[in-house]
């Protein structure tokens, strides 16, 4: 394929993706404005026909997907302009986006399964874009295996619901809700949380996201994982529930959040770090949903709505900052030609806009004020600490534990994000700078546009979350019809309880005080003169050398020691000697690897079960022909007994 034809393909794919994203976003906004949109074509899909319908819940997820897809579609011009790929990959991008938009629109179980599987298959093919690389093949294999196991769980549970539904429609005016049994709940929750990248079926995430092309990682990590949350909301949280379901969701969520934050802390691969951060943030979202479920079943409706608001706002915040993080990380990787944080450095000078974007995204990921991730986590925390003293014993046990674990998670992720930004972007340059390759203008403009749009969206959402208030109101009204959704204005407050916050006020205070402090320092310096810097007693050394500065391993080392048991970091030092006696060392290579203990345990368990099962089957096949005939006879008898 020659260059000009490739460029046409790339532009066409990008424009097409943009078009699909705009169409999806427009449909979502129309729905939020009160339109009732549905489409029924009976002949288009086999078995059940095509039935699409958007309600406020679908609209929320479609709007998020559409927003991310707009940024990703613009960014793909920059990315695929540099990393030339096949027409097949380019053609898959719009299909993937369309599938992600259609899953929440699916009105029947059949359509849901169909679009879910299209989404899974296209994303698997996109992960395998660089299939010549063995790491990519490995990641793709993991992804396909996990996604199919997840789909099998969802299929099994929702097929049961479908069999008991009179209409086959997903909400079907409550027809499926009565039969949502414990088994169905646990199976579908496992399937949906697997897609959302939560424990225990999460090992694909940290493998697949780094290996996929960056626009695909951004779409997967900011939009596709949300679809898992959509499934949990649509299927698992729709009907009457039991309180232990909420406890299970909180347990899964907090375990994933803590696990993700810990692993993000010790990852030095920038994309893997972001993937773990996805796992962690989605863990927080499912924790909030679990708290909502638990509080609702115990009739603390007002606090439950705060938890729900936390979940929805964190969902929006996460989608915004994670897409920005992946796209700006993609620019940083292109600029420094490495994914290793330890080999980046001084990116703030080499790629200003991408560094700024990455900084804004990191601030969002820390969950601190001024970041897009703050408001959702704050609301969740409010919901957790507002447990009344008259609450059942279960709540009084679960909630304080959840608060403690959430606080630990936030601490760990602040450390992880500080490391990612400090070591990767702000530190001094370690590796001699790669020559800046001249890129086509269009690519540069596209990359800058995508990042600027997302930075703007992040900052606006972080300071004035009330712009999503109509969206939140519609979704909350839909989920809790008789409830009284909390009021999100310029300051968020919940009247019957104590607690209010105004992110805009915090923003003004922080920025204002920063300006005042800056001015005072400047004035002080002007009056006193700058303090001359001089070499202290330095043992004859000069200025600190580049290798003396902190790297990502040394940054995380203290925490790594504390959590050594959970992380299982393995260190190897390979030493080559020049002489047989081993006195002269030629090379010394230090390697660090960490075992994913959840995946290892899970795989070992599954392997053991399969081994046991097959040995049982083997024992039933001793090679005696008369025994086989006996099996046949018993089978025949059973058939006769069953059919009589």
């Amino acid at each position, binding site marked *: 394929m020659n260059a000009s034809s490739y460029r046409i393909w790339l532009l066409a794919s990008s424009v097409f993706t943009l078009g699909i994203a705009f169409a999806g976003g427009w449909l979502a906004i129309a729905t939020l404005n009160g339109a009732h949109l549905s489409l029924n074509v009976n002949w288009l899909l086999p078995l059940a026909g095509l039935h699409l319908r958007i309600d406020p819940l679908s609209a929320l997820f479609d709007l998020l997907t559409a927003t991310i897809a707009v940024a990703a579609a613009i960014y793909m011009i920059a990315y695929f302009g540099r990393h030339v790929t096949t027409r097949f990959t380019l053609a898959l991008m719009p299909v993937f986006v369309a599938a992600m938009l259609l899953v929440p629109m699916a009105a029947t179980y059949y359509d849901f399964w169909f679009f879910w599987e299209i989404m899974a298959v296209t994303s698997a093919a996109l992960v395998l874009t660089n299939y010549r690389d063995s790491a990519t093949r490995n990641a793709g294999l993991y992804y396909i295996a996990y996604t199919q196991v997840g789909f099998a769980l969802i299929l099994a549970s929702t097929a049961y619901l479908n069999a008991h539904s009179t209409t086959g429609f997903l909400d079907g005016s409550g027809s499926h809700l009565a039969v949502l049994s414990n088994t169905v709940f646990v199976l579908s929750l496992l399937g949906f949380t697997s897609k959302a990248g939560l424990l225990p079926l999460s090992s694909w995430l940290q493998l697949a996201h780094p290996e996929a092309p960056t626009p695909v990682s951004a779409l997967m990590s900011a939009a596709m994982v949300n679809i898992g949350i959509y499934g949990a909301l649509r299927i698992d949280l729709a009907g009457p529930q039991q309180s232990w379901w909420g406890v299970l969701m909180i347990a899964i969520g907090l375990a994933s959040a803590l696990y993700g934050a810990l692993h993000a802390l010790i990852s030095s691969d920038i994309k893997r770090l972001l993937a773990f951060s996805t796992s962690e943030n989605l863990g927080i979202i499912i924790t909030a949903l679990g708290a909502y479920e638990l509080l609702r079943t115990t009739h603390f409706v007002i606090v439950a709505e705060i938890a729900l608001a936390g979940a929805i706002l964190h969902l929006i915040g996460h989608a915004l900052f994670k897409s920005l993080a992946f796209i700006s990380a993609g620019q940083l990787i292109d600029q420094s030609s490495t994914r290793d944080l330890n080999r980046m450095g001084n990116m703030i000078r080499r790629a200003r806009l991408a560094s700024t974007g990455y900084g804004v995204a990191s601030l969002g990921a820390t969950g601190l004020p001024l970041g897009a991730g703050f408001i959702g986590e704050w609301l969740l925390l409010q919901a957790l600490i507002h447990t009344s003293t008259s609450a059942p014993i279960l709540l009084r046990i679960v909630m304080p534990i959840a608060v403690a674990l959430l606080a630990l998670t936030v601490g760990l992720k602040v450390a992880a994000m500080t490391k990612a930004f400090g070591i990767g972007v702000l530190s001094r340059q370690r590796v001699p700078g790669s020559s800046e390759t001249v890129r086509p203008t269009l690519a540069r403009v596209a990359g800058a546009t995508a990042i600027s749009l997302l930075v703007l969206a992040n900052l606006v959402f972080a300071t004035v979350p009330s712009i999503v208030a109509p969206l939140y109101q519609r979704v909350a009204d839909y989920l809790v019809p008789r409830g009284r959704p909390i009021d999100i204005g310029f300051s968020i407050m919940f009247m019957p309880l104590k607690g209010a916050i105004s992110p805009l006020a915090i923003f003004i205070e922080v920025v204002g005080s920063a300006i005042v402090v800056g001015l005072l320092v400047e004035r002080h310096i002007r009056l006193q003169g700058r303090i001359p810097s001089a070499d202290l007693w330095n043992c004859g050394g000069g200025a600190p050398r580049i290798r003396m500065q902190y790297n990502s391993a040394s940054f995380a080392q203290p925490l790594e020691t504390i959590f050594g048991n959970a992380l299982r970091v393995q260190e190897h030092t390979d030493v080559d000697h020049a002489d047989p006696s081993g006195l002269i060392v030629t090379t010394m290579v230090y390697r660090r690897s960490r075992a994913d203990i959840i995946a290892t345990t899970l795989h070992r368990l599954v392997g053991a079960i399969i081994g046991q099962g097959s040995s049982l089957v083997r024992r039933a*096949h*001793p*090679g*005696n*022909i*008369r025994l086989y*005939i*006996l099996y*046949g*006879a018993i089978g*025949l*008898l059973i058939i*006769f*007994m069953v059919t*009589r």
Partner: protein
Amino acid sequence: MSILIQLCPALLLLTGILIAVFRDLRSQTSLLRIQGIGLGLLPLLLAIEQHSVALAIAGIIELSIRGILLPGLLMRTIKRLPQEQDPATTRNTASSFLLSGAVSVAAYLAFLPLTRVTHTQLAQSSFIGLALVFLGIQVLLVRRQAVGQIIGFLMIDNGIDTFGFLATLGVPFVLELGVSLDLVFVILILAALTNRMVRKFEGTDVDELSELGDR
């Protein structure tokens, strides 16, 4: 005439039980021949009663293949076998009798719902087909020699045929021909395999085959 027709299924069941009980291969083959003749007589007698040419042709085919050809082929194979030392079955006569009785009763019980809805007396005796199938399986299970198992296999097929005929009173002629020809080929192949087993292992005890299984 109708009494003769009623007697045929009884003859089939009797021969089936006796085949399952007898230990000697030659007498089993003779019983199988009687059974085949009985199976052929059934459509022939019906044909005389109903003046149907198609039934008569089917009966002649049944008689010649199941009554004469197959037992003849089997007898030829048996005559070539060496005199074997070990007992030919794993069960003694008394327990075989008990087992056969139990199998017949089980077949009858399994068919109770079906026999209730049928109206003709002949169709009500169609459980005998199933009994023959189970007796055939019993022969397959207790015989240690390959030829004995061929007898069991033939009896299963006779049972299926009996059931088909009694339940519907007349299987389409072409189907009958096809099935019977298939059966002839199967028996030819099995006889050839038995001969090879005799040459290779000096016996046809299938228990020895388990040594070939990959453990």
